[in-house]
């Protein structure tokens, strides 16, 4: 799934969800910075992570809860620079979500694809 467009690849992993807003935005910040450095960047949302991508959440909360910038701002900052967002079916099930409940553009992968991305990345950074 990595393209050959960049020499450097970073895979971020977000495991935290809406129950811990303070942990929601940093992976998007770092991913945006990495993309600005012309790295190829993906964020994989697993465990509670997919809840951050809910359509009914992204305009409601941000890292400071209901104060300050909302998640959509941080998400679009990253995706606007080419960062790709990945989830897996099992973590959708865990949170009783369907792909349609999430914002557009999220890509579905599975465990094998995740592991393949991880071993071929230059860095895997997990939150």
């Amino acid at each position, binding site marked *: 799934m990595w393209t050959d467009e960049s020499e*450097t690849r970073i895979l971020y992993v977000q495991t935290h969800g809406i129950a811990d807003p303070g942990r929601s935005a940093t992976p998007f*910040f*770092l991913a*945006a*910075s990495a*993309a*600005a*450095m*012309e*790295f190829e960047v993906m964020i994989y949302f697993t465990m509670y992570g997919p809840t951050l991508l809910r359509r009914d959440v992204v305009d409601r909360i941000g890292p400071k809860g209901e104060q300050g910038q909302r998640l959509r701002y941080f998400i679009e*900052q990253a995706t606007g*620079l080419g960062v790709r967002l990945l989830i897996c079916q099992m973590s959708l099930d865990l949170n009783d979500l369907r792909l349609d409940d999430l914002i557009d553009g999220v890509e579905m992968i599975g465990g094998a694809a995740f592991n393949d991305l991880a071993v071929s990345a230059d860095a895997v950074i997990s939150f």
Partner: protein
Amino acid sequence: MSVRPKPEFGGERTSRSETQKGDVVSESSVPVVDQVLDCTGLACPLPVVKTAKAIKKLAQGQVLELLATDPGVEPDMRAWSSRTGNDLLGISKQADVFHILIRRVK
């Protein structure tokens, strides 16, 4: 804000003495700046993100001057320039504002 020593310039800068007497010259106009990007008041990662977008709008060889107050901008822009292959011509700090000159290389 704490008082910090002024960062040294990272590269050569054309001497101000080359300008003619009477010219209206701001500190930032040496060397010739093609575009100024004002990121004062913006926090990480916006200066990096906006610089990455702005530099792509310049032609190769043109110079971008980034103005930023984010306290981490100096190591950030050194890392960014080195990774993207653009030339960081110099960093200076005037009052609370970092002035960062970057020449688009590729």
